[in-house]
């Protein structure tokens, strides 16, 4: 008796719908075991993680705040992944966007610059992110260098560059030597939606991005080309689609979105530039993209869910002394299960019972 994987005649739409739910279920079971190993009550730990943040308005706003960069980055990444271009350096593009936008905020600090500052910052952030993402994309299409490795290496470079700026030229003179710029002026700050709340304009921008991506992928030729190049490269060649141009395009879009998310995060919830402005948004967004099955609406839901785990993780650390790394383990395991369950959309398991005579040597 043998358990084998075999290709389905066509993709299973039922599994495509339920597989993220199965994956989340399996993750929760695994996490319960992990909590038990850490000698924490699994039921109350899961409650702190997934239920408590949904019960007060501060946490609900905080979930939306955390989901904003995740969704924006993941939308861009999903375009890349659909086109079979592997941008895994979104974290770096996020940081470079944050730096570029902050440059204007730092330069106009204390001047009587008007309300043009914030829009200009957002544009600068997006442009810088796009340019930074184009480096690995050009290395890929021009020289054939693996975009996976180059885009990731540039994350470390961006991180060190930001570190240099806030410890050196941009450090707040009145900041007691802390590595941070001064708080941005009001004209350089992303406005909040509800007075006194945390929810800011970025959330609206993220929703616009989701809508735009839905239209791009579902209603335009470019969107169609992106999907064909990834799913059927040969057919795309016959169709005359320029796959190199699409690699450049998807990288530029995803870099722009990551950069925009970066400057929104810095000019919004954080309020100044400092090291560690991102708790790994660029990497978590990879999980968001896959959990949302590279679909804009799916990504919106997945982004909110992953944001919930960030908030839940912080609360679990405070309330139950559960280490923050548990959140990362959780996210890694979740991605594992999502990918495993997705396999069942295209394949299925079958038990085969070979007859004794044939089974020898047939392996």
């Amino acid at each position, binding site marked *: 008796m043998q358990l084998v994987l075999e*290709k389905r005649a066509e993709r299973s739409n039922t599994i495509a719908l339920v597989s993220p739910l199965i994956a989340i279920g399996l993750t929760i079971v695994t996490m319960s075991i992990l909590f038990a190993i850490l000698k924490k009550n699994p039921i109350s730990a899961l409650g702190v993680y997934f239920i408590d943040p949904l019960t007060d308005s501060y946490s609900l706003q905080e979930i939306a705040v955390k989901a904003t960069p995740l969704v924006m980055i993941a939308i861009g990444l999903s375009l890349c992944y659909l086109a079979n271009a592997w941008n895994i350096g979104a974290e770096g593009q996020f940081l470079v966007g944050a730096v570029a936008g902050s440059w204007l905020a730092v330069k106009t600090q204390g001047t009587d610059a008007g309300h043009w500052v914030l829009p200009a910052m957002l544009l600068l952030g997006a442009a810088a992110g796009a340019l930074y993402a184009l480096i690995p994309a050009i290395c890929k299409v021009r*020289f054939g260098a693996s975009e996976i490795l180059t885009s*990731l290496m540039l994350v470390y470079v961006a991180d060190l560059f930001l570190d240099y700026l806030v410890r050196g030229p941009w450090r707040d003179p009145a900041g007691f030597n802390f590595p941070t710029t001064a708080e941005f002026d009001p004209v350089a700050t992303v406005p909040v939606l509800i007075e006194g709340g945390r929810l800011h304009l970025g959330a609206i921008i993220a929703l616009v991005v989701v809508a735009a991506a839905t239209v791009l992928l579902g209603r335009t030729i470019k969107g169609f080309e992106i999907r064909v190049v990834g799913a059927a490269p040969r057919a795309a060649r016959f169709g005359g689609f320029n796959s190199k141009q699409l690699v450049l395009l998807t990288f530029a879009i995803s870099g722009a979105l990551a950069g925009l998310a970066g400057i929104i995060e810095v000019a919004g919830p954080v309020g100044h530039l400092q090291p560690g402005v991102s708790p790994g948004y660029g990497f978590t967004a990879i999980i968001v993209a896959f959990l949302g099955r590279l679909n804009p609406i799916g990504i919106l839901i997945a982004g909110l869910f992953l944001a919930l785990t960030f908030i839940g993780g912080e609360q679990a650390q405070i309330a139950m002394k559960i280490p923050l790394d548990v959140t*990362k383990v959780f996210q890694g395991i979740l991605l594992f299960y999502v990918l495993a369950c997705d396999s069942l959309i295209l394949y299925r398991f079958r038990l085969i019972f070979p007859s004794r005579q044939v089974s020898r040597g047939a392996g």
Partner: protein
Amino acid sequence: MELAEAIILSVLAASTPLLIAATGELVTERSGVLNLGVEGMMIVGAACGFGGAWLTGSTIIGALCGIFAGTLLSLAFAAMTLGLAVNQVATGLALTILGIGLSGLIGAGFVGERITPAPHLHIPFVTDIPLVGRILFGEDGFVYLSLALVIAVWLFLYRTRAGLVLRACGDNHISAHALGYPVLRIRMFAVMFGGACAGLAGAYLPLAYTPFFIPGMTAGRGWIALALVVFSSWRPGRLVIGAYLFGAVTILQLHAQGAGLGIPSQFMSALPYLATVIVLVLISRARTGGSTAPAALGTVFVPDR
């Protein structure tokens, strides 16, 4: 001369983890599997390696713990990519994300602790020869092990039948399968070997390089090891050159920082990463005539019956 000797010694030490991890990944990739989870397996190897050595006081047990942890993670990767035919790039990323979380969790209890670093070889008189003595005969065991590993892998790949079969799986899994070779099983062993090497390479960091554990201490070395495999055109010999070149860049930037050339330290720290990008571009560009990568690298294989 003292300085030159010190520099060469530290270059060898900085290169060794890269060389070990890259050798393992080279075998994995030669079988046709791209495991991007090297960084994740290394960092868990570092945490488990330190834990094992700290609890038992033995470097060897620490190294074995690292190897075991790396192998275990690579088995999860094999189950996904070989058993379930999941995309290898995505699974490798998942492995790295998971590994970084796991290492933080495992290592939380050891942060701030110290262990005795791995002993260095000392042969009376021979090691004391000026200039070359300490470089050739005064290293820690891992340095010699890494070189032995490269030679063993070279012999295996090019001088044994099993090595030929493994390369066949990496170049054309359909033909290898048609000839009756168990492609998936061979790939599983190759992935496990890669995991064991990554775990050992990670364990080297707290066991011999710096005698303590810090979260995230691999600092992208797993990714650099992946780039080294590309640099080497999938050949073990060139891997040694590549690893020592990268070790040299790492150490030289540290010395340049120490010498205070007036260049911000962050720019110097960025050098190894920038060098990786530049080298990848140059190597890939030189190879426009035809790729030397295993032809089936990164593609899923589901045997038909």
